[in-house]
Every structure is written in C-alpha cells, then in structure tokens.
C-alpha cells in the first residue's frame, strides 16, 4: 500500500558483479568528493568577517535617550509586565530639581535590571514601551563565566554618547 507519493521502493536484488567489486562506486564517490576541492567554501572567519543580521534580529537591549541626551524611561513597568520570562526589575524615583537635563519626565527608573539569563529576546518589552525607551539592538550577548555578569544594570544598557552620535549620523545619511 502506498501511503505517500514520495515513497520509493527499495531495490533488494542481489549485487551485480560491478557492484560487488566496489571500484566503480568508489570512483563515483571520489569524483563527488574531489569535485568539492574547487567549490566555494562556506566558512565565514567569524571575528574578522561578520555576516549581516536579518532586519528582524533581536539582540541585547538598549535603553534609549532623546536628542538632548535625557533618559526616556519613566519606569512605568509595562515592559516588566509584558515580559514573559519575568526578567525585568525596576525601581522608580522622582526627578529632583536640577535633574531636568538627565531625565525627560518627572518619574524615572532609579534601578533598571534585566536578567539576561532569563531573557528570551522576544522583544515584547520593546512593543510594550509607550515611550520608545527600550529597544533590542543587533548586538549578540557576550558569554561569561559568572552569573552575576548577566544581570545587566541600567548603566550597562543605557545608550552611550558614541552610539547616539552614530545614530545621528545614520539619520542624516
């Protein structure tokens, strides 16, 4: 009985003399393997050559700042709520006088931590954020020997001046 159209019946007839002496088959095999000498190598020498990520790639998180360099996050907690892995912890604080150049709104995240060992890089935090304060970059998470390393503090994720500059240049171009 044939179950699928792709079923192939196996030939179980005894080997012919040509098959028994194996040599034609070996020559055929060698032809295939030796042919690969001239084929293009699939290897990418990683640290020197990097393959571009797909446009939907989700890597390490970045906490965003606006054009004047003020943190956008208001510690509303929606990202932590949306997080299916419960990787995000935060503590809110009120902005004092004289801190207007640091935080955009009256409330800000005094502590903002993501446990990268729990994070599944689903990107729900990015979707949940009403202030565009968090997004997932194209950086792959580095490896480390200690678990503490993987709890990323706010300072680890906050966008740097260098990145800001780069982004500004990109925007112009």
């Amino acid at each position, binding site marked *: 009985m044939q179950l699928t159209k792709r079923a192939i019946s196996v030939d179980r007839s005894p080997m012919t003399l040509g098959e*028994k*002496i194996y040599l034609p088959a*070996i020559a055929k*095999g*060698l032809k*295939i*393997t*030796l042919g*690969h*000498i001239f*084929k*293009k*190598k*699939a*290897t990418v*020498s990683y640290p020197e050559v990097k393959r571009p990520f797909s446009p939907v790639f989700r890597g390490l998180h970045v906490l965003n700042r606006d054009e004047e360099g003020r943190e956008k996050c208001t510690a509303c907690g929606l990202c932590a709520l949306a997080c299916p892995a419960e990787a995000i912890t935060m503590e809110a604080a009120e902005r004092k006088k004289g801190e207007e150049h640091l935080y955009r709104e009256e409330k800000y995240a005094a502590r903002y931590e993501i446990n990268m060992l729990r994070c599944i890089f689903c990107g729900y935090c990015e979707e949940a954020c009403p202030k565009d304060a968090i997004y997932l970059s194209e950086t792959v998470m580095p490896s480390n020997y200690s678990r503490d390393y993987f709890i990323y503090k706010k300072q680890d994720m906050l966008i740097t001046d260098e990145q800001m500059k780069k982004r500004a240049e990109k925007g112009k171009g």
Partner: protein
Amino acid sequence: MLLLSIDWIFIIEKVALILVIILSSFGVAAYATWGERKVAAIMQDRIGPARAGIFGLLQPLADGGKLFFKEEIVPDRSTRTLFILGPALFMVTALMTSAVIPWGPDFSISIGGTERVVSLQVADINIGILYVFGVVSLGVYGVMLGGWSSNNKFSLLSAIRAASQSISYELAMGLSLIAVLMMTQTLSLREIVSQQHGFWQDGYFSWNFFKQPLAFLIFLVCSFAELNRAPFDMPECESELNMGYHQEYSSMKLGLYLFAEYINMFISSAVLATVFFGGYNFPWMDLVRDAVPGGLFSVICVTVLMIKVVGFILFFMFIRWTLPRFRYDQLLNLGWKGLIPLALLNLVITGGVILFFFNK
C-alpha cells in the same frame, strides 16, 4: 685494538640515518594530521585549521602540546603493565618498518681522503619484504594488548576485531605480494627498487604497478585494512564501539596510538611506493644522473620518493573522507571470499605467464 677495528664512521652514519628517518617519520605523521584535517575540510566545503600559524601549520604542535598536558588516567581495574606497554609497542612497531626501505640511491663522499659509499637505507637485509610483514603483524599486538588490558568491553571487542581483521587481510596482502616476488625473484627491497629502474625498460614500463596491477590493487585494499583506516576502521568505529581499543587511554598514551597510526600510514605509503611505484626511480633518471653531481642526485631521488609517498597519503585521506564504513561481516567477506581468491588467481596467472613466456 678491538675498538680500532670497529668501523666507527659506519656506526655514526647509520645512527644519523636512523635519527633522520625517525624524526622525519614524526614530522610527516604530525603534518599528516594537519593534512587530514585540511583534506576533510576541503571535501566538506570548509577551510579547516587556520588559526594556529599560517594556514594552521602550527596545529600539530598545539595538538601535541594539548595531549602532553592532559591528565594521565590509568583505569583502576586495568592490567597496568600491559596497559602501558600497548601504545609503546604500537609506536615501536610503527617506527621499525622504516629500517628496510631504501630512501635513495647510494652516493659517495670522501672522508679523510678515503671514498666512502653512503647507503640511504638503514639495513639492506635480503629478506626485506618478510621483515616488513613480520613487523606489521607485530603491530596488532599493540592494539590487542591495549584493548584487552583496559578491562573495558568495548575495547576488548575492538581489539578482537582488530586482530581478526589484521590476520584476514595479511593473508591476502602476502598472497598478492608473492606474485610480485615471483617476478622479481628477490625479497630484498633494494633489489626490487633497482629492478624498476627508470620508467621505461626493454620495451615496457619498468614499475611493478604496470606489471602487477591486480596485485597492487589487492595490496592497496589490504593496507587500508592493516592501517585501520576508513572504510575498514572497524577497531575504532565510533558508532558501535565508542572509540574502540583506545577508549580508556588518555593524555600522550592516546596520542601515541593516534600518532602511530599516521606513522603507519607514512611507512605503508613508502612500502607501496617502493614495491609498486618504483621507489625513488623516476622517468629519465639516467639523464638527470649524468647531469648533476652524485649527492644532489640522491637528494632528487629522495624527493621523488617523498612525492610518491605524499601522493599515497593523500589518496588514503581522500578515500577516508569519501567512503562509509564497511559492516564487519562485509569486511570479512571481502577479505576471505573476495581478495584471497583474487590474489590466488593472480598468483596462478603470474606463474603461468612466467612459465610460458619468460622461461629461459
């Protein structure tokens, strides 16, 4: 007076030759591991070792260094003496075969005014081929002792396999060589090589490969089996026996086993080249000999032999990365029902041809 009558220069010469041969065996074997990785990589569209040095050329050193620094483990219930003896024996037998291979023609140098003929062969014994066979069949003791004394069922099974495989294929190997020996009428490797002088002699190719193609084929297949290399790598067959006879070995003892296999490959390539592919002979060698000084000619001859050896080593590698492993019963069937009758047939044909056409 006794000391004076000893030919000290002769001893120094031989010791130097032995050292050179053993060291170059090590060198070739080390770079064979590198070559094997490169060949495997190229056949699988990869680039292979590329980080250690240019083209990964320092990779063998890194491997050796790693093996030396690994922890040395001797299993609790193993037979300790035999366990240590196993890899040593395997290594020693691998190195011993090279003694009778003629690496190049003689050349003469003058030391203190007297002409000395220097032979590029450690020992020209008149039973050269027999010696090779004797040592090769000793080689299986290393595998057997190692597998048996590790007190591991996988190792034991693999050692038994290795023994029976090697015994079966030695028969066909010997029979295929007898046909060659009937033609050459000598067991001395030096004479076998000098009979294959040049490339074309008396209206026919002088290399034994062209006179005995079937014997060459049988010998080649058998040397795959003797070397425990794919497609006949039954003794180490990862998918059935984990790692085979060297499963319990670690550190440099494992290294010795793996390394000795590559030395075996080098030596058996040299034997193949010597017996069937004219050794250090090459086309138009008479012209070259008249054109260059004797010492340089010897160097050219050694280079030619090395090129042939490297060719065989590459062929061994190509086959390994092309063919899947035989099943064990298929292996024995091929040996006993295929190669031995074929070798006997070759023997009869050779005997008949010699009797009817060359019976002077």
